């Protein structure tokens, strides 16, 4: 899980110029991190690239509310064997 958190946070730092201290598990994507629905699409694209997965059409993405949800979602993908290079 630590590797997933590290890689996900890298996406937010590199693509959205977030500060590390903003990136807490309970930070909400919309209110705390300030993304809007279109930024969410950019976030998904950046996650796809980082984890080498195709998730754009995955309905579960719609349920993501917090950064912790992103971590857990990526972990789920890893457990399903969809991601690569994230073994913790």
């Amino acid at each position, binding site marked *: 899980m630590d590797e997933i958190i590290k890689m996900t946070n890298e996406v937010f730092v590199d*693509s*959205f*110029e977030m500060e590390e201290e903003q990136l807490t598990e309970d930070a909400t994507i919309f*209110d705390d991190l*300030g*993304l*809007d629905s*279109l*930024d969410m699409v*950019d976030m998904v694209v950046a996650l796809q690239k980082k984890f080498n997965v195709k998730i754009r059409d995955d309905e579960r993405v719609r349920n993501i509310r917090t950064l912790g949800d992103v971590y857990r979602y990526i972990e789920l993908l890893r457990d399903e064997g969809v991601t690569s290079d994230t073994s913790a």
Partner: protein
Amino acid sequence: MILLRNILFYILFLLFSALGIPLFMIVFVPVRIFSEKRFYQKMLRYGIILYGKIIIFILGRILVKIDCREESIIETPVIYILNHRSSSDAFLLAGLTDEIVQVVNVWPLKLPVLGYFANLAGYLSVKEMAMDEFASRCGTLLDQGVSVAAFPEGTRSGTKQMGKFYGQPFRAAMQAKATVVPVCIMGNEDKPSRGSYIIQPGKIRIRRLKPIMWDEYKDMNAFVFKRYVWRIMDEYMKEVE
């Protein structure tokens, strides 16, 4: 005393609207019928600006002083990004001088009379169109020499603290490689306050900041760009206020 000045302002505002709008219609209706869309829309947009100017610079003097300046020379058309503290912002747009189309939520277009003119002037209801259509409409307007004015907070903050920005106008700017001009409206958070009609006397400052050209933001994504503009405006307002 403040109450009396408000009553006087609102009476004059209603009288001016009740007389001015029908007078404008007398001139506008034949133009609307016999001229091309581009021409009558231009006339209407300048008419709306004039209406706003009379309200804020003449009638508004009963209560407020408007101090409107630009920090550097601006070559229009541009995409104006404005902060949004009060319902008076729609009128304060008249502090800008060029032909403008405003980006609005759904409800202003549903207002009687004003909504009709806003629709006819081609105001952009951002929630009723997909991003591609919105960007395309902004691009067409800019090509026609028309500036676009957006309040990316989406709703009134009611305070000196700006809300977060939505990304649509920034994405439209990126697509059109347009110049973006931040506009800070300060001092109007109580003119009137949220949930009130009472306009507190005082001074409203409107500042057009330095234009942000395509070259300056071309390497940013939409999120980074909107935060960049937000910070410029936030820092400026904190310094001035």
